[in-house]
């Protein structure tokens, strides 16, 4: 079930998060993301500008892909669970690309009733090339309350 509650006790090292498939990327989403984020770099909107800058075409904001990866984590752990999220943008996401976000549990720790889970997170395009790689830390509730 989507948005079901997950508890620290239910998580094992090596567990995989349910994959999240986003896209195909359309220009309108890049325009919406520009408005929502305030990043109006024309390289994401204007084909001529992108060409003049030496790119083949416009491409997606890295932060949009990071938003997808964050959604993969929050769909699983809950929107308020994320303590840390860090990524490297490994490759450009282009128009018409499909982005599949994935995650895997790397480790668990508990201290003072705070239960932290370390995740490896990444996103790949339809050719299986990694476009985002990174790590996240989420705090999960315990069944003991």
């Amino acid at each position: 079930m989507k948005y079901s509650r997950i508890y620290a006790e239910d998580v094992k090292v090596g567990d995989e998060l349910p994959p999240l498939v986003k896209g195909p990327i359309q220009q309108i989403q890049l325009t919406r993301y520009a408005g929502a984020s305030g990043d109006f770099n024309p390289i994401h909107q204007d084909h001529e500008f992108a060409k003049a800058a030496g790119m083949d075409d416009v491409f997606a904001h890295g932060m949009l892909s990071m938003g997808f990866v964050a959604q993969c984590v929050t769909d699983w752990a809950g929107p308020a669970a994320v303590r840390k999220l860090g990524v490297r943008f490994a490759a450009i996401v282009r128009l018409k690309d499909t982005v599949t976000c994935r995650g895997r549990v790397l480790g668990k720790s508990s201290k003072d009733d705070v239960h932290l889970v370390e995740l490896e997170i990444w996103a790949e395009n339809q050719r299986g090339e990694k476009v985002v790689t990174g790590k996240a830390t989420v705090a999960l509730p315990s069944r003991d309350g």
Partner: protein
Amino acid sequence: MPIQLNKALIGRELQPFVVTIERGKIKEFARAIGDANPLYLDDRAGQASEWGDIVAPPTFMTTFRDAAGDNTDFLRELGTDISRLLHGEQEFELHRPLRPGDTLLCRSRIVDIYEKTGRSGPMGFVVRETVATDKTGEIAGAMRHITVVRL
């Protein structure tokens, strides 16, 4: 001869700025990502949650900008322009969920500028850190942004 970035900017503290998180902006941001989580979009779901209101998605701090600031001047001083920029890395630390009405003081600093030669030629890297504190002086969140400059 590739462009030289102005390393004198290392350590530069940018003008602090204040942001107040707007309810509509959280929803617009979640919708732009295509994330329909009710804790971002549905005020009633937010009120019923342990947070008492909707919360912002984990990457929302990327919207924190100095409305009075002009990035063009900074890029000129750095020795480049917007057409050469790529986003290299990004990290967020969230000390608590961000909610509508939160007013945060944001302080940014250029912590490093360096060059490396990669597969696609010489690249410059500009590392900027921002810390957002609330009215009580507690850190609500922090972010680290690495901009790549195609030299």
